[in-house]
């Protein structure tokens, strides 16, 4: 039998029993769409997390006040009951041989006023180093000046969103605005690069760390970002930092160091679980589709007994008959899978247009996997009924059911 004839023969069958066809198409499509959707979302979540935390870079450490074991659970986001990390500590850290850059960070919400507009804006106190470590770039103006950490200069940089809120479309560079009780001159506008580490730089103000100490009336650092010098190992840097801090804090080990690996490790379990459940759900839904295909094919074989006998009488071999039923099931699975792929991508696209910040992308393995599982399951489950049809003795098949035509 030529493939074109096989195709039209099968299509004739499928369109004639449209309800049955629709059900199988639906089942297969749902299965395949589920695989794409779930893996798409899972992959999106994974990328989201990676993008968030890879901003830190492999060679960056974050130091927090307070001691917490980094194994198990997320590291503490706020320090408590420990000695402050001072600006002098930060300066000393940067002098370590294994550290190339150290940036202090104090953060808080501050009341910001410009020309009568009043906004609460997340304000970061840090140094010029922060821009290097976080790889922030400027749209306009210049970065924080390279001044001693203790000097509170009245300058600030502003994120594009905060700028739009406060200044509208007016010129911001060079303008004076009030943060808390103090006045600051805008010297730069930060390039927008979206969310990072849960902090939206575009919605923030950046000022010298000493100024932030005054505004928020705090001494200790909220965090310290540390970049390991190229050529030094993470391990070496870590122990040098711990030793230094212990010495400076009177023998007390009261800081926590976290790395990207530790952070990502915390998410790893969740992501693994997610992937696992994705696989399980997808597999179940496709196996359900497969069982449906098997049942339908069995029914089809018993309904078409006389036809099988006839086709054999007209010269179809057992192989031809098996091919006929297998290809019918495969055609159904293929059409269903294509519909599933179409609707799966459509839904992901819809989701992406609703939440643009969440990256969705179906990994190629999931696409090919879904397609081949759908076809494989169809072939597997249709094999039994197709072989049963192929084995039917022609005489009995002809007599099995006398067609009404």
């Amino acid at each position: 039998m030529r493939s074109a004839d096989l195709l039209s023969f099968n299509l004739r069958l499928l369109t004639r029993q449209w309800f049955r066809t629709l059900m199988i198409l639906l089942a297969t499509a749902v299965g395949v769409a589920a695989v794409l959707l779930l893996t798409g979302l899972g992959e999106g979540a994974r990328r989201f997390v990676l993008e968030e935390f890879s901003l830190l870079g492999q060679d960056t450490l974050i130091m927090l006040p307070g001691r917490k074991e980094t194994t198990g659970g997320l590291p503490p986001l706020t320090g408590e009951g420990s000695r402050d990390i001072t600006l002098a500590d930060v300066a000393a850290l940067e002098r370590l041989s294994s550290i190339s850059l150290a940036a202090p960070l104090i953060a808080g919400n501050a009341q910001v006023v410009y020309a009568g507009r009043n906004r609460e804006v997340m304000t970061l106190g840090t140094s010029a180093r922060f821009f290097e470590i976080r790889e922030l770039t400027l749209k306009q103006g210049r970065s924080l000046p390279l001044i001693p950490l203790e000097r509170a200069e009245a300058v600030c940089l502003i994120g594009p969103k905060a700028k739009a809120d406060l200044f509208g479309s007016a010129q911001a560079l060079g303008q004076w605005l009030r943060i808390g009780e103090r006045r600051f001159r805008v010297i730069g506008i930060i390039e927008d690069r979206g969310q990072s580490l849960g902090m939206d730089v575009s919605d923030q103000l950046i000022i010298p760390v000493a100024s932030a100490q005054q505004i928020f009336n705090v001494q200790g650092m909220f965090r310290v970002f540390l970049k390991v010098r190229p050529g030094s190992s993470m391990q070496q840097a870590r122990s040098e930092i711990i030793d230094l801090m212990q010495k400076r804090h009177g023998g007390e080990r009261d800081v926590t160091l976290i790395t990207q690996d530790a952070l990502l490790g915390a998410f790893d379990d969740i992501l693994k679980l997610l992937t696992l459940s994705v696989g399980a759900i997808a597999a179940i839904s496709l196996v359900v589709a497969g069982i449906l295909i098997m049942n339908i094919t069995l029914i089809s074989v018993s309904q078409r007994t006389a036809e099988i006998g006839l086709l054999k009488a007209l010269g179809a071999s057992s192989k031809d008959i098996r091919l006929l039923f297998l290809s019918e099931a495969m055609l159904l699975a293929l059409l269903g899978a294509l519909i599933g792929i179409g609707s799966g991508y459509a839904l992901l696209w819809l989701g992406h247009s609703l939440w643009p910040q969440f990256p969705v992308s179906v990994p190629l393995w999931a696409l090919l996997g879904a397609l081949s599982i759908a076809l494989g399951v169809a072939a597997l489950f249709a094999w039994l009924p197709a072989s049963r049809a192929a084995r039917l003795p022609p005489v009995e098949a002809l007599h099995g059911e006398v067609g009404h035509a």
Partner: protein
Amino acid sequence: MIRLEQLCKTYHLGGESVHALDHMDLAIAAGDYLSVIGPSGSGKSTLLNMLGLLDTPDSGEYWLEEQQVSLLNEEQRAALRNQRIGFVFQAYHLIDRLNARENIELPLVLNGTPPKLRRPLIDELLQRLGLEKHALHLPHQLSGGQRQRVAIARAVIRKPALLLADEPTGNLDSHSSNEVIELLEELNGEGITLLVVTHDPKIGERAHRRLWMQDGRLTGENLDAESREGRTGRKDRKGSDDAQR
């Protein structure tokens, strides 16, 4: 063309064994017109299915065109059915979702004939059997006689050597019966070997060679005079047949 030697087929039904074919010996020459007449259950269909390679004997030998059938595998037998044998059944066995043309086309579709080559063959046959108007009709839109003619067209589309008809008129009124039988006889006149199975002596009598069957055995045989004389001058004989009637 066909030789059966001691062919046996036994069915076991609930402890009872039925000898559907009981040590059957039979030879059929190419171009013959045979009928097998017998009461229901005498083994006629079983014989026809054996001859048509639809069934396999329990014992005995079957030679079809000098080929020992028992040595063929399933695929070879299927190919032989497709090329050399045409079937006509009492219940027509048309596929009801396919129109007349597509039903006739099936043997060509199964052997992989390209559509371009199929078309003229079918057109010619449709015209010959007066079915052009019904080419696109589904079986349920056709009368019994028309359906059987479609079935006959399907049986001969591959120009087989052997045409096997199992009660071809069993579901038809006498007028359609006549038409169908005449069509079969016309095909026989063109050289195709025709075997008609029937329980109706009136139909059976028309064959040149008539076999009576009972309980899986041949109980009698009748040969027309001309047939006994030799199998040449077929045209003439057909003429004399008509004269007799």
